[in-house]
């Protein structure tokens, strides 16, 4: 065994705070150390050549590089070892930058710490064993969960590349929240006009299998090999036979709220979600229908010319295998009824942003005429309250939802376009227009459309006759202000949708404190999750506007392609390993594994059936939670065995 030790100066990043020469000298007398050197930039070409040369000339078989975080350059040096015919897992990186030079200022103490870290690594390295990573095959089919604009974009991109893609949508039509929007900021493009071509493409694409009215109910497996169960609910209308003639709707005796119009208008139990719906078919609302029993009511079936209504339709369970999964489960608006002082739900003319969106929409419940809910009158003064429940860590959402400033501005502007003599007032804390052409859009609303902006938050809304008394403040004049509004629109923030929360739980994806799914790295891996092969698209990972969602979704599709394009994947070798003799089958590791990589399997032990833990090597990320949890010490972590860690502790404690 011959160990080569290389101390990187990283320019002055390390050498500025750590006496690298001293650190190198400290390693020389240690057992098995053949050479110990300092180099200015170990990761540079000449730095790597130095190591290569030593391997050749001194016959090194293990290498320790004391430099930066292994997340940066471990792959670089491992590749070097592999090239030279050494086992790459005999490389050890010691982080004397992030964990030492960057966080300390006293040179002597930092040097001492660097020496301790290096010593412990060397002692550990002597106990390391060569590891061989395993390989798994890849199923080159993709699953996209969620059929909003993010899911649509991801599915289209993947399908275009040539991968068979399943798009699963919970509701009867794809389109998501974007389909409910009237116009989009800052261009005022008609939302449906720019969305529906993409929806139609999804419906027609030969590589896309669209499963609307369907839910993912179970996900098993690992990167390249996910086993997924999808429940496809019954629609009770045969989409092939249905000619969209609409005969069935008027005869249906059941009237319920239309969710597409934010519950502001009625629909029947048999309905088409909206005119541009994809798949374009009527469906029967199972819960509202008088029982899906022809004995009770079969009015729709009786009038259906093509005989498309089938009360015997049953939900199906579809089982498929996928190589990669894109989670595009989206957001939902913050429940503003939580904001008691704004009286949503009790004051008729206080509505949410999404409701206003429908009210101003030409396809909305008022046919594009701005009418308020209480009496259908055209409101002459509309107050828009920004940050309704946002940036309010005390009681509501701590974060900024990014889109509310812009959509409120858009609402106010659209309102002014529709009601020329109306007054639109925006109460805001800050106007955030950090997007392309956003600032110009905001300026246009104020300058050209006379939208009034008052800096200050509204504290309370009080019903006063048929108006709403707005009690706010104008912080720029330091005055409390009151005004009467005919209609108040609350700019609600975005929270993770029910689907996002469910899928996160199902896939064991960690969520951040706000419930949105956490990215593998907020900057460098913004569409990856901690689970290999699972990617994020759109607002499932946090509030985004449409352009950002679309680019995020394309990013997710591109990242998913990097897996789908492989024939087989190499799996990290530093993973958990169960000592079956010590394992008592308690299953604590099963429950504690963040990646669902461990299960209990039955084993025969002298005729008795016992259970022992078994690690799925493809799923294991080598995080070490299980081996820390195991009271019996039955799980070792390859590359970080108990003996190796004890050796490290001894080195550190020996000081």
């Amino acid at each position: 065994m011959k160990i080569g030790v290389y101390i990187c100066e990283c320019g002055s990043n390390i050498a500025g705070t750590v006496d690298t020469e001293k650190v190198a000298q400290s390693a020389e007398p240690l057992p098995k150390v053949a050479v110990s050197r300092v180099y200015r930039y170990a990761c540079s070409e000449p730095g790597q050549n130095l190591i290569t040369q030593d391997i050749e000339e001194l016959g090194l078989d293990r290498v320790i590089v004391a430099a930066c975080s292994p997340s940066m350059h471990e792959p670089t040096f491992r590749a070097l070892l592999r090239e030279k015919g050494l086992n790459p897992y005999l490389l050890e990186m010691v982080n004397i930058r992030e964990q030492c030079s960057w966080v300390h200022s006293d040179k002597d103490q930092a040097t001492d710490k660097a020496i301790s870290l290096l010593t412990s690594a060397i002692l550990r390295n002597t106990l390391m064993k060569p590891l061989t990573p395993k390989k798994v095959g890849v199923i080159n089919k993709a699953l996209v969960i969620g059929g909003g604009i993010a899911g649509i974009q991801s599915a289209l991109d993947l399908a275009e590349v040539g991968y068979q893609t399943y798009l699963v949508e919970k509701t009867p039509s794809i389109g998501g929240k974007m389909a409910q929007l009237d116009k989009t900021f800052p261009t005022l493009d008609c939302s449906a006009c720019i969305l529906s071509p993409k929806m139609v493409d999804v419906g027609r694409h030969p590589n896309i299998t669209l499963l609307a009215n369907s839910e993912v109910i179970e996900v098993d497996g690992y990167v390249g090999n996910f086993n997924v169960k999808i429940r496809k609910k019954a629609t009770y209308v045969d989409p092939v036979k249905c000619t969209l003639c609409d005969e069935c709707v008027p005869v249906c005796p059941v009237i319920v709220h239309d969710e597409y119009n934010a519950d502001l208008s009625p629909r029947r139990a048999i309905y088409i979600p909206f005119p541009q719906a994809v798949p374009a078919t009527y469906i029967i609302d199972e819960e509202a229908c008088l029982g899906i029993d022809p004995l009770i009511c079969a009015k729709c079936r009786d009038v259906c010319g093509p005989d498309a209504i089938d009360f015997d339709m049953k939900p199906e369970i579809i089982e498929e295998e996928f190589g990669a999964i894109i989670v595009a489960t989206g957001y939902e608006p913050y429940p503003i009824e939580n904001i008691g002082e704004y009286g949503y739900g009790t004051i008729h003319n206080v509505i949410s942003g999404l409701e206003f969106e429908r009210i101003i929409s030409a396809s909305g419940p008022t046919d594009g005429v701005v009418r308020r809910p209480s009496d259908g009158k055209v409101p002459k003064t509309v107050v828009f309250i920004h940050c309704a429940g946002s940036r309010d860590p005390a009681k509501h959402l701590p974060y900024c939802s990014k889109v509310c400033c812009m959509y409120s501005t858009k609402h106010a502007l659209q309102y002014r376009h529709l009601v020329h003599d109306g007054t639109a007032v925006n109460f805001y804390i800050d106007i955030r227009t950090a997007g392309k052409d956003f600032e110009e859009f905001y300026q246009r609303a104020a300058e050209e459309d006379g939208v009034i902006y008052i800096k200050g938050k509204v504290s309370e809304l009080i019903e006063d006759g048929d108006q709403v008394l707005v009690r706010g403040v104008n912080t720029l004049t330091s005055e409390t202000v009151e005004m009467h509004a005919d209609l108040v629109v609350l700019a609600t923030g975005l929270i993770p949708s029910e689907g996002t929360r469910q899928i996160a739980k199902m896939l064991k994806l960690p969520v951040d404190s706000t419930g949105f799914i956490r990215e593998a790295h907020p900057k460098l891996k913004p569409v990856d999750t901690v689970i290999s092969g699972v990617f994020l698209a759109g607002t499932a990972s946090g509030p985004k506007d449409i352009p950002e969602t679309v680019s995020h979704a394309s990013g997710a599709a591109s990242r998913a392609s990097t897996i789908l394009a492989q024939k087989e994947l190499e799996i990290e070798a530093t993973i958990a390993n169960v000592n079956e003799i010590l394992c008592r089958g308690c299953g604590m590791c099963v429950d504690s594994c963040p990646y669902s990589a461990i299960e209990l399997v039955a084993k025969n032990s002298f005729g008795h059936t016992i259970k022992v833990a078994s690690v799925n090597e493809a799923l294991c990320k080598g995080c070490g939670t299980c081996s820390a949890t195991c009271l019996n010490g039955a799980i070792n972590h390859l590359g970080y065995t108990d003996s190796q860690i004890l050796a490290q502790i001894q080195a550190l404690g020996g000081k």
Partner: protein
Amino acid sequence: MSYEYIKFGKEEREFRQKIEEISGENIFSCYQCGKCSAGCMFSDKMDRTVNQQILRIQLGQKEKVLSANTHWVCASCLTCSVRCPRDIDVAAIMEAIREYTLREEPEKIKISELPKKVLEKLPNIALVANFRKKTG
């Protein structure tokens, strides 16, 4: 703290429109960054900042706008107009507030009441400029 009931009635709209008409500026262009007030070398003598006056015009608060001394302290040095990021001729808005008053009440200063000594002593340029700004 003072209090204001915000109304968007005829009176408020007319006041705003009149100021816009006189100044030729779009009052709503202002996004209240406050750079005009920040650079105004007379703001220490004003009882309301320049941007606050503009904001009140946006809201049509005529009484509060006219009761301030801001536009009378303004010496039309135009620093605000030159620096405004929204290219608003802020000084023109101050001028418009003065004009609005002067068109109702033509004399802010009564020339006849100025001491003779002042009139004799001062250069023409000061007198003419002053009368042009402070009489209707």
